[in-house]
């Protein structure tokens, strides 16, 4: 518990402007609650808090543009409030069980990509938020040290710490489970941080690597009052920076295949004929589900690159959504591989609507583990994508078209879709990418099982 910092809502974000606070000092917050609206170059994001606690102080005025990592608010432990009699005694079991699950699911050393360092944990899946139903839990301290004496840290953080002669155990990690990330090394290493990991902690300056040097909080609310034209320019700028970084840093390779969409088309037609307008499924949903399942099976295509391949414990499917007037965002559908098609359709509809109305959540911006670019029925037949760093893969689907197609020595007309995979050659090889596409193909031949 302690400082709630300006999260990095994607690798392309260096600064953010607090547009509005949704909480006041004294408010009790729970993991996943929306506490503030933050304006980025791309859109306005609803920022979620990632721990339970009591808001003690808001440190940044609305309108201020601050670098990623800047403390925005101080959040105190619920237990303190409980001791004062303002909250019920916390049944700790659920949170502990969850912490254990998370610890088991993530291989040691636990790592997350730098851009996600200040991001909250993923939201509950299924689009339905359960935060109110979740019992109050004891605050989970985030000690970098573990009982076995091994400090959780990303490989990059380890190397930098070794280079600088810093003892990792003196740091307070901001990653999941308290893992020390490279960015944490820039923070002071004073013992206070460790001995009092509560609301009293106060770090003087957020020196986050990647934040513009010398960038200071500016009261001018230019960003939030900018017109649509400025927003367009800012969006273009953000995309330009991220895509340039991707092509500069990531050695892309591409594989492609044409998939017979006949079985899926027939199944969808049959389903949709029996469904009301509001319950119908789009082909995109079938493609997304097949991709999410395949990403779980294929090695090294779902995850991040942070000085080494980092395997996430889940499939959070980024979906490229084009915005009216230009530009695009690629927020995540959490745990897409575990949703049924109806759930996924609802999540997609909701995500597209919120992406276009500027109401995405912070976890959706920071969590994607692999992205899908689906051109839909107005698009070209093939898209060879550019990977979103720090992700290591992007799946592209073109428009579904009718083409002559040979099956069992006979030629017929079938709906087909061109599927491509852009892979990060540092993390995987063409063989892995090909395997992903082959798996997607196989899954699409049995749509009823998706």
């Amino acid at each position, binding site marked *: 518990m302690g400082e709630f910092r300006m999260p990095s809502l994607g690798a392309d974000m260096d600064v953010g402007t607090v547009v509005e606070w949704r909480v006041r000092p004294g408010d009790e917050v729970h993991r996943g609650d929306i506490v503030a609206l933050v304006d980025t170059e791309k859109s306005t994001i609803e920022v979620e808090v990632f721990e339970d606690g009591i808001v003690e102080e808001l440190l940044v005025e609305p309108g201020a543009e601050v670098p990623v990592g800047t403390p925005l608010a101080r959040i105190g432990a619920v237990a303190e409030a409980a001791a004062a009699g303002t909250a019920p005694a916390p049944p700790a079991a659920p949170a502990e069980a969850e912490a254990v699950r998370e610890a088991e699911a993530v291989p040691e050393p636990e790592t997350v990509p730098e851009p996600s360092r200040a991001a909250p944990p993923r939201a509950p899946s299924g689009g339905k938020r359960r935060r109110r139903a979740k019992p109050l839990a004891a605050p989970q301290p985030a000690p970098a040290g573990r009982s076995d004496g091994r400090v959780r840290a990303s490989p990059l953080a380890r190397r930098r710490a070794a280079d600088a002669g810093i003892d990792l155990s003196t740091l307070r990690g901001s990653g999941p489970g308290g893992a020390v990330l490279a960015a944490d090394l820039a923070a002071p290493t004073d013992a206070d941080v460790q001995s009092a990991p509560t609301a009293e902690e106060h770090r003087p300056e957020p020196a986050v690597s990647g934040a513009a040097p010398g960038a200071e909080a500016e009261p001018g609310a230019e960003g939030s009052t900018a017109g649509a034209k400025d927003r367009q320019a800012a969006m273009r700028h953000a995309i330009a920076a991220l895509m340039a970084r991707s092509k500069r840093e990531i050695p892309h390779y591409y594989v492609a295949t044409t998939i017979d969409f006949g079985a899926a088309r027939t199944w969808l037609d049959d389903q949709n*004929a029996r469904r*009301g307008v509001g319950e119908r499924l*789009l082909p*995109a949903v079938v493609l997304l589900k097949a991709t999410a399942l395949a990403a779980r099976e294929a090695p090294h295509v779902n995850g991040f690159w942070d000085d080494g391949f980092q395997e996430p414990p889940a499939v959070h499917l980024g979906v490229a959504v084009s915005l*009216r007037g230009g530009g695009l965002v690629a927020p995540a559908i959490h745990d897409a591989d575990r949703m049924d098609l109806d759930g996924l359709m609802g999540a997609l509809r909701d995500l597209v609507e919120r992406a276009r109305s500027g109401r995405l959540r912070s976890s959706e911006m920071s969590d994607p583990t692999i992205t899908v670019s689906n051109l839909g029925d107005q698009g070209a037949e093939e898209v060879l994508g550019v990977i979103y760093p720090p992700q290591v893969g992007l799946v592209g689907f073109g428009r579904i078209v009718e083409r002559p197609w040979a099956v069992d020595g006979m030629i017929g007309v079938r709906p087909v879709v061109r599927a491509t995979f852009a892979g990060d050659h540092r993390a995987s090889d063409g063989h892995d990418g090909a395997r992903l596409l082959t798996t997607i193909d196989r899954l699409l031949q049995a749509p009823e099982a998706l």
Partner: protein
Amino acid sequence: MNTDDARSLLEELLGRIAPEVDLAGADPTASMQESFDLDSMDFLNLVTELHEETGIEVPERDYPKLRTIEGFVDYVSSASRSPA
């Protein structure tokens, strides 16, 4: 519902999905998806909103009939006169 009503309804529904759309200046025989840059989700939302407003349930096989402004207006005005 006459054709004028159907047209104003279309204008209203499109306004919710793509606020910048100018129906008056558009070619009534061109594909709306192309003219207004609507994707398949937008089109599904249009059909869903149509159902919510009028009760007209468009089966998927009829989607092609609603692709143009003219087609949409004709379909909706005749469907509302003789409910299928």
